[in-house]
């Protein structure tokens, strides 16, 4: 028998995830901030990190957003192929959940409908940016990642060639962080997508943000590259809030995909210190 799930359950789950993500900083991010205190040498930098930790604690206790930029709502869906959704459409349900979450949770509505001319606010933070993977099984996994614009605006994609090698990737990531300076609200987390096609690399770089902060890639070669890039980035001296210091980034997460014989696309998504996301499995 095929398992069924009613859209109402999806709506209320997404509503809850939007509010939880905006108000509660994941434990691994809190721990990464605390660890970065030990490495930071700048007195002002230490002071800033302490305030960020205090701010996250207050947000969680009082049930208010960590940051007023509660983002464009990026939703990653893993849909089990044996699950049957009843009562409506999956994407309508997700957007209704976003609408309720942003209204009932007193979150900021930051989405405009026409990106070029009118730029009129949609008033409920919809539509979400939704990515769906169909997977084996009969479950539905939903991950909500509210993405703020301060860091999103500083991301970059570059079509490197195979001859550029790991050094090319390293230089591109370091340059991207350098140009971003204080804008993405350091200490940041750096998502890097390598391979596939241009848009695939960009998506990988966003998904890389879902990894537990600082957990190395399972392939030791890639884990080593992550470590080397992190070290280089932290030599830039940008530091907390860009005011100078040792901790510009807390982690580099690289995700890979096979690619064309002629290609080596690299995408970088920068994530501010408020690295928010929340997930649920139905």
């Amino acid at each position: 028998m095929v398992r069924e799930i009613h859209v109402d359950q999806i709506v209320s789950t997404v509503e809850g995830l939007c509010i939880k993500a905006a108000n509660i900083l994941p434990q691994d991010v809190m721990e990464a901030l605390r660890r970065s205190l030990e490495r930071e040498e700048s007195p002002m930098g230490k002071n800033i990190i302490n305030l960020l930790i205090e701010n996250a604690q207050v947000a969680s206790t009082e049930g208010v957003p960590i940051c007023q930029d509660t983002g464009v709502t990026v939703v990653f869906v893993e849909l089990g192929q044996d699950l049957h959704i009843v009562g409506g459409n999956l994407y309508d349900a997700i957007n209704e959940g976003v609408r309720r979450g942003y209204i009932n949770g007193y979150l900021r509505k930051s989405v405009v409908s026409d990106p070029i001319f009118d730029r009129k606010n949609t008033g409920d933070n919809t539509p979400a940016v939704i990515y769906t993977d169909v997977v084996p099984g009969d479950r539905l996994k939903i991950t909500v990642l509210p993405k703020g614009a301060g860091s999103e605006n500083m991301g970059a994609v570059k079509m490197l060639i195979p001859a550029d090698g790991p050094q090319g990737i390293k230089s591109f990531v370091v340059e991207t962080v350098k140009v971003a300076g204080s804008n993405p609200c350091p200490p940041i987390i750096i998502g890097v997508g390598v391979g596939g096609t241009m848009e695939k690399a960009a998506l990988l770089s966003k998904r890389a943000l879902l990894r537990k902060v600082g957990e190395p890639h399972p392939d030791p070669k890639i884990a080593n590259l992550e470590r080397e890039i992190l070290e280089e980035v932290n030599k830039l001296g940008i530091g907390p809030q860009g005011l100078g210091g040792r901790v510009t980034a807390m982690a580099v997460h690289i995700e890979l995909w096979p690619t064309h014989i002629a290609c080596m696309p690299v995408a970088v998504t920068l994530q501010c210190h408020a690295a928010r996301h929340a997930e649920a499995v139905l």
Partner: protein
Amino acid sequence: MAKRVLTPLTDDVVLSLKSGDEVLLSGVVYTARDAAHKRLVEMISKGEALPMELKGQVIYYVGPCPPKPGQVIGSAGPTTSGRMDPYTPILIERGLKGMIGKGLRKPEVIEAMKKYKAVYFLAIGGLGALLAKRIKKAEVIAFPELGPEAVYKLEVEDFPVIVGIDAYGNDLYVEGVNRYKVI
């Protein structure tokens, strides 16, 4: 030790502030971000009256969250200032004395700050829950249709900022990064 500064700002106060100074601001500040800046500058070019007097005033680059019941305002930290750069020199020329935001500014903004004596304060990005507690009153005074981008008149008390760029052109970002960069 933080300096206590009241708004609106006079030239003397602006000139007494140096990059790196910690400041507690009190008084009225106005919010404006991308869409409001665009409208303000359009109004200036058409010769229309602005919704607020700019002389001596401070603009805070923020789009706050809506208040929960019992709150004055929702989370309210700074947004990235650089997006306002195309509009800022004309506002400074019209009397704007201070800006609160985060991130780098373009040379033309710094030149206008030096020429007309204005100061750029930094608030810490991602500190919205704590900063909201220093805002005692909030009222939308223009462009309500812009939602979070409307212009609010805020009354702040001991609002914690750092002088990022002073009226002499000293830039704390440049100084801070130079102190710690290894490459």
